[in-house]
């Protein structure tokens, strides 16, 4: 067997970038076909291919790291840089929506009544469910840190329990937000208030779901003994992402729910 004389990881040729690209093509053109010709077949196929690609791509990364030992310290460093850069790009993504919100709310136009919230909009009370949501996410930040310390100390049972609790809190947040969306006295079609509110909080909610899924995968891996007390970057990446989601919510809460009400 040929041995490499360096600590880096030359990955095996993989078909998943191709299937991922095709999946993106199918999803986007499928979306256009759905809008204009009422058929969801292409879009559904694209969605299925995307999910399968994600499953297999990340399954392969787990195989390469946990089972084949390719994630040496330099490789792990690269993965850390990658995750940090990805989260930074997400920060900029949200920055755009905050820009839109502040653009409209700092100088409300005459069409809105010259005030914010605009005339006719009944905003949600920031000290009811939104405050509970804030507490839920902050608590989940504590439990995910507890899980991390448990992993580092080799406490299997505590790690599983605290990680499960974190995920449950994430689901609780999602359920509460869904209920708020249903009960809200305004919709996305209610002018720029509705647009900025639902697009910003909507994308945030999507990120909560993504973060909860990431943590759930970590929980499954933890149960299957993948993480060691020294090496558990998958979990760290999930925890970073979760903290990012929490911080975005804090900004949303303060800007849109509280100041904007």
């Amino acid at each position, binding site marked *: 067997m040929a041995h490499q004389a360096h600590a880096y990881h030359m990955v095996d040729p*993989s078909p998943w970038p191709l299937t991922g690209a095709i999946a993106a093509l199918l999803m986007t053109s499928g979306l256009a076909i759905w809008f204009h010709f009422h058929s969801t077949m292409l879009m559904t196929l694209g969605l299925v291919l995307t999910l399968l690609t994600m499953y297999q791509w990340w399954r392969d990364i787990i195989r390469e790291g946990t089972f084949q030992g390719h994630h040496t310290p330099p490789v792990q460093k690269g993965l850390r840089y990658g995750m940090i850069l990805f989260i930074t790009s997400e920060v900029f993504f949200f920055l755009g929506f905050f820009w839109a919100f502040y653009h409209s709310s700092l100088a409300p136009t005459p069409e809105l009544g010259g005030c914010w919230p605009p005339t006719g909009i009944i905003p949600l009370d920031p000290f009811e469910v939104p405050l509970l949501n804030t507490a839920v996410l902050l608590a989940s930040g504590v439990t995910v840190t507890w899980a991390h310390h448990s992993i580092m100390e080799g406490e299997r049972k505590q790690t599983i329990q605290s990680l499960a609790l974190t995920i449950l809190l994430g689901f609780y947040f999602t359920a509460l937000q869904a209920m708020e969306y249903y009960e809200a006295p305004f919709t996305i079609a209610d002018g720029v208030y509705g647009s900025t509110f639902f697009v910003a909080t909507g994308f945030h909610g999507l990120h909560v779901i993504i973060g909860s899924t990431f943590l759930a995968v970590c929980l499954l891996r933890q149960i299957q*003994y*993948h993480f060691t007390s020294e090496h558990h970057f998958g979990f760290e990446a999930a925890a970073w992402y979760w903290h990012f989601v929490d911080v975005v919510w804090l900004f949303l809460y303060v800007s849109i729910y509280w100041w904007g009400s």
Partner: protein
Amino acid sequence: MYYKVSGVTGKLTGATAASAYSPQGLKGTVPSQAPPIIFAVPTKVVSETGSVAHYMGINKVPELQMIFQKTDGAPVHLKRGVMDKMLYRTMMGLTIGGTLYCLMALYIVAQPRKPQ
């Protein structure tokens, strides 16, 4: 003397051998047992030698490591044999089929509609 990085201060502190390196799932072998208390009827001693308390399943990682490190030249996405191959073929089928379907659909919708 063993050392560990303290979870609280982030600094190097002293530690016992057990806490310096104990990846979960690989903890201790023989737990210390008190000698059996002799009553009128001797208590049954359950031997735990060599077994680790299993919380939510046993550790299959070493076994999987052996499977994935076999020098059979297979790329990582096909390393597990038949299941991997079937999934890969299904994916490729859907991908190529989907591409053709997509190109055809786009060609059709790009045709101008007949004037009425």
